[in-house]
């Protein structure tokens, strides 16, 4: 077990190198000039300035050299300085936006689970009932709604028409929580909806699978009440696959919801990524993708590890 985990962790090194090479090549294949984006059109009209800036940023070195320098700095924890965003260090920028995304996404995840798990259980225990069918159809609908469209409709309805909620997220830092929660309602709702639908469907099929296992029949045959069988025997095992499903949501949580944060002008990582791509801010794009990629890879290992701990039937061989 430990050896297996150690091997997985060691394997992160080539994976991260591969990720960095792919992302570096992808980002640097871009035709747009970051120097022009950085200096603005006025300063950029002077070729001397542009040349000087390129030299200062190391953009005149051959690409492999630039890559090597970047990796060397990365290993030492230096993610560089943003070309735009007032030339803040990349890590500072990410740090500033990190909490915004984590608050939003963990709330959406938590609400998703809190609703989906009971719904999935009810659905599974009353398979093919009217309630189950309604839940199934609703989850299909929840999964099919384009969330950016839902966000626009909610904005027009709840904030423009009714005036109940603020349209954008600006200014939320300046008010107390008695006002601040209003900023969270729409983005959390939009992000939680697909979570609810997806988790509920998974919970239902996971629960159904367990209910039909022999040991559940045995527990029933022993004369245990269906309540005990359901919660003591079935539920605990049905929850195990949810570890993986929730783990799979982490890339999205870590990178932030690019489009939704954009729509609500939410101060998070998704909005940062979108802005950085638009401005061709290489260090920020690369820093974000490397951190997200690394986090996702680590989380995958952790998820598998937790899975093995939770389900003794699974071995790592």
């Amino acid at each position, binding site marked *: 077990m430990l050896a297996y985990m150690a091997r997985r962790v060691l394997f992160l090194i080539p994976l991260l190198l591969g990720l960095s090479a*792919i992302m570096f090549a992808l980002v640097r294949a*871009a035709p747009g000039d970051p120097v022009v984006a950085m200096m603005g059109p006025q300063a950029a009209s002077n070729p001397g300035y542009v040349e000087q800036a390129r030299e200062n940023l190391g953009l005149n070195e051959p690409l492999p050299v630039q890559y090597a320098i970047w990796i060397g700095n990365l290993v030492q924890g230096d993610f560089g300085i943003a070309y735009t965003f007032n030339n803040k260090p990349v890590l500072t920028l990410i740090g500033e936006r990190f909490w915004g995304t984590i608050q939003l996404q963990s709330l959406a995840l938590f609400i998703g689970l809190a609703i989906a798990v009971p719904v999935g259980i009810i659905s599974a225990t009353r398979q093919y009932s009217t309630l189950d069918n309604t839940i199934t159809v609703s989850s299909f609908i929840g999964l099919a709604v*384009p969330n950016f469209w839902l966000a626009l*409709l909610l904005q027009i309805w709840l904030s423009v028409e009714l005036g109940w909620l603020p349209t954008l997220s600006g200014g939320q830092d300046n008010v107390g929580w008695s006002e601040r929660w209003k900023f969270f309602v729409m983005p959390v709702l939009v992000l939680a909806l697909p979570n609810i639908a997806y988790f509920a469907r998974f919970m239902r099929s996971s629960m159904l699978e367990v209910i039909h296992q022999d040991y559940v029949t045995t527990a029933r045959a022993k004369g245990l009440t269906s309540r005990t069988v359901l919660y003591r025997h079935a539920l605990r095992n049905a929850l195990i696959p949810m570890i993986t*499903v929730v783990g799979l949501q982490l890339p*999205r949580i870590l*990178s932030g919801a690019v489009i939704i944060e*954009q729509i609500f002008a939410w101060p998070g990582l998704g909005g940062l990524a979108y802005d950085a791509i638009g401005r061709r801010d290489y260090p920020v794009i690369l820093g974000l993708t490397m951190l*997200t*990629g690394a986090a996702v890879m680590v989380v995958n290992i952790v998820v598998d590890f937790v899975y093995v701990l939770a389900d003794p039937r699974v071995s790592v061989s």
Partner: protein
Amino acid sequence: METEQRRLAVTPRGLEAELVVGAAPLAKLLAPAPRRLVVVKRFLENRLAVAGLVTIVIFYVVAALAPLVSRYDYDALQSGMRNTPPSAEHWLGTDRAGRDVYARLVKGGQVSLAAGFAAVVIVMTIGTSLGAAAGFFGGWVDAIIMRLTDILLSIPLILLLITAASLFRPSLRTTIIVIGVSSWPGAARLVRGQFLALKGQEYVTAARAIGAGPVRLMSRHLFPNALAVIIVEATLWLSYAILLEASLSYLGLGVQIPTPSWGNMLQDGQRELLYGAWWLTLFPGLAIFLTVLAFNLMGDGLRDALDPRHRRR
């Protein structure tokens, strides 16, 4: 082993885990006729799946007949008709340039449905080829392909897409290629899992024993048996691809105006929302929603019809 199989089979929003775990649905399409009928019958018994199929057929027919089903040209600008609400003349209203929204929606459907289809062809071609090679040959081929999928899957798809899309001049073709080339890892892992499971079956060993080469084994024995899973995956991917196209076009990185697509109609209508022109946002979104829903229902029904074991649960 089991953990890995489960993990790899769950694609961004689908519930495909069950497909790989356990027995594989077998060669339904090359099966004798009665068997095929059973599958068709099972599919038709599923009302939701049939509703999905009917919706998709209607949408494709309407899109194909685009010039015939709308009175107005999708690009015809009418002065004095800026942002008029739905009426008898303009069923779904007009946009800020006085263009008929219904005509644009139908034309946009043509673009979005075609883009989704083309992107899925690319996804499934790359995914199936690489997944098949990885599953069949194993060893270093498998290792390289799987590590590549690990890397690509570690970047959130939408981030990868907007990075890639912003590199090229945005257009319909760019959108299709970007979605196709970035989205194959899920399909590759699924097909690999199928090939791995099938490779160990006795009939494959038997075919190998009588001298079948790798090409024949893969094309005649493994691929037909994995086809059911591939078709289900492709159906579900059609819904993701249409959503992804809409997202990219909404961000302005996909299909460009004046060519309408459901995504760029949403982007174009968004700024008119403040003036109360809700019809510019409602209808394109509804079209995307219905298409995605229909493909999901159909894909789910197909899976149940092809895999009776799955249906029982």
